[in-house]
């Protein structure tokens, strides 16, 4: 009997220490592993190009602690003259993000494409971080259900004219291993966007902006913004608002 008690005590000892640690944590009210969240609508803009115009969004939200975060991303567009909810096409991603080095985190998860043809699902694996010269980078590789490979690279940085007037150059590329005719999407470097957005931070969380973006789409690629006969590469003017909370 005493032996049983003894064994029980040994078995419970780590548990007791754990409880004490929790109790201490509760009393200290210090939680350096606390979870936070942020939603950033980096782009919510109206674009006007050669013969076409429409809306574009790009947003990201995360929730988690310093080390691990659940990350959701979405981007897409909708043409003018139609209700956005019915005609929008784009993608959404849900990723697990873990910091691994001084400047980089790795991400894995899933991506879904919607609108403009049949929906598509992808597995996603990528990195996100800060490259030298303060260049924010998102690089993700995707594997589609039919064995299609895709890749996305997005980079951007901030150049300050004043403490509130900030120029943001941005470069985004999307590549596919094979075309997807049902979604009217080409192979190879399917699209490339190089943008410049000049924003004014009314407060850090709210900044209207003006800008221009150079968009080039490969053959067999069509987006709502591009009507038949529209040139494959064009400049588009844009105006929008960036916000986060």
């Amino acid at each position, binding site marked *: 009997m005493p032996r049983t008690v003894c064994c029980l005590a040994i078995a419970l000892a780590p548990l007791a220490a754990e409880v004490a640690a929790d109790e201490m944590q509760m009393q200290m009210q210090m939680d*350096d592993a606390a979870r936070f969240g942020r939603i950033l609508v980096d782009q919510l803009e109206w674009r006007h190009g050669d013969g076409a115009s429409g809306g574009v969004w790009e947003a990201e939200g995360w929730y988690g602690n310093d080390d691990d975060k659940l990350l959701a991303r979405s981007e897409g567009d909708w043409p003018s003259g139609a209700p956005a909810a019915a005609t929008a096409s784009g993608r959404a991603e849900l990723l697990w993000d873990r910091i691994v080095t001084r*400047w980089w985190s790795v991400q894995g998860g899933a991506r879904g494409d919607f609108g403009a043809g049949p929906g598509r699902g992808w597995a996603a694996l990528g990195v996100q971080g800060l490259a030298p010269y*303060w260049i924010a980078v998102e690089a993700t590789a995707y594997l589609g259900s039919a064995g299609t490979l895709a890749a996305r690279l997005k980079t951007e940085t901030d150049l300050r004219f004043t*403490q509130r007037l900030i120029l943001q150059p941005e470069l985004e590329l999307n590549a596919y291993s094979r075309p997807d005719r049902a979604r009217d999407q080409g192979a190879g470097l399917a699209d490339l966007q190089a943008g410049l957005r000049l924003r004014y931070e009314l407060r850090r969380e709210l900044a209207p902006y003006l800008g221009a973006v150079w968009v080039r789409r490969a053959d067999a690629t069509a987006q709502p913004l591009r009507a038949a006969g529209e040139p494959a590469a064009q400049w588009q003017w844009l105006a929008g608002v960036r916000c986060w909370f």
Partner: protein
Amino acid sequence: MQGIAGGTLLLGAGRLFGRTPASAAQVLSGSQFDLSIDQLPVNYTGAARLSTAVNGQLPAPLLRWREGDVVTLRVTNRLAVRSSIHWHGMILPADMDGVPGLSFPGIAPGATYVYRFAVQQHGTYWYHSHSRFQEQTGLYGPIVIEPRGGERHRCERDYTVLLSDWTDLDPEHIYATLKRQSDYFNYHQRTIAEFEADVARHGLAAASASWGMWARMRMDPTDLLDVSGATYTYLMNGATPDANWTGLFSRGERIRLRFINGSSMSFFDVRIPGLVMTVIAADGQDVEPVSVDEFRIGAAEVYDVMVQPAEDRAYTIFAQAMDRSGFARGTLAPQPGMQAEVPRLAAPPRLTMADMGMAMSGAASMADMPDMPGMSHVAAAPAVRHSAAEHGPGVDMVAAEPRQGLDDPGIGLRDNGRRVLSYGDLRTLGGALDARVPQREIELHLTGHMQRYMWSFNGRKFSDSQPLQWRYGERLRIVLINDTMMTHPIHLHGMWSEVEDAGGEFQLRKHTVTVQPGQRLSYRVTADAPGRWAYHCHLLYHMEAGMFREVIVAAPTPAAG
């Protein structure tokens, strides 16, 4: 924010009350004290807010003790959440230290905790909450302890000058904001115009090399304080700059000013144009008097200075935040209502590569040098070892060649034309408390990641760390190496930190030791206080983010036999 003119306190009765010079400052003396922690409505900026106050006072009442007395303090918590009071810099039993989770469980809502301890020291100290962000919302107050043998320096006037940083924002929101965007409060970032100015001054090659180095490192030379005047209203004895706290004097009188930095996140550079300040004590410890025009005071640090105005006029006490984003201000004057010219804020300083403990060679140093002429005599420290955790994701830089020596007044104060205090100017009277040579050396690196807003020692946050185990009675040397670009005030509870000069000789005794970016600094500690103690950066949000360690001093073993 300069605050509304005549910043007001809304007292319990709902009466609007002008915050006039020293009017409301309550002084409690003796050996028995009843302190009540409660919310207090305040209005410093035009917006009504709730502060955390003691006996309806912000700052909390001045406590006057006598060396040798046993004081009893009955602290009642009338908040809806747990609270605590820590007696900063006091040498006392561990269960009286007031750190929830280490010293005691904290004070539950409605409960009273009785602190009782012998006062074995004298000088100027302070007290504050050690619970969550209650220090940010107002729970701080001065302590003045009269020496057993009488004051060393006679004076006709004696004022405590408590500096603090008030925000209308919820501190929890500030913390979350820093986690979301760590440069949120920094409105002194480098611009394209500044690059052009650097090119004009140093040439394209040197400017590009300097800017390129910072950009490759992904570090920001403007990041001096994480939370700035963008949200803070800096207070002097609870008065906004516009409300102008005033200390009265008659011409020729000796005035003792006991400066206490009770802020959560701010370093202040303090001067009184027209007056020379003679520093007579640091962190409550008497020092060889040294006369200066200006001194920097880190969060939780304390300096006693003497001034003697020869003229019948007002003098401005000007305390600008280290990042030049705002200032606290008060006045010494022969009559209430007088004021003197208020200096302009200086230009925001920029960190240099040398500040970060980086090699100063090649083109990059040319553009970086202008702020650093005083650095040439600074000795290079011994070779540095960085632990594996310092190369993990929670650390954004390490100092390859940390600077050594105590003569640097710090970023933004070098060669400003004034006589500025440095640790090298301060010598504690009477020497070290313990003449023994340290038997053991502990090296701790101050580490962090500004972008991710992670702060730690040796690359490990508090939650990932093990307590530091010290043997009772042992004499230790703590070596701090600042691997971050920020200045950190490091506070060891329960035991003195006896700072050494570059040669390893005793220099000064402190409870809170400021370590500059890229600096190596060492101090001796005698582990003569058994129990569990807090050891942390006194920048409140750094502490909450993990720049905190528990120290365990083993209980003395009974003599063998």
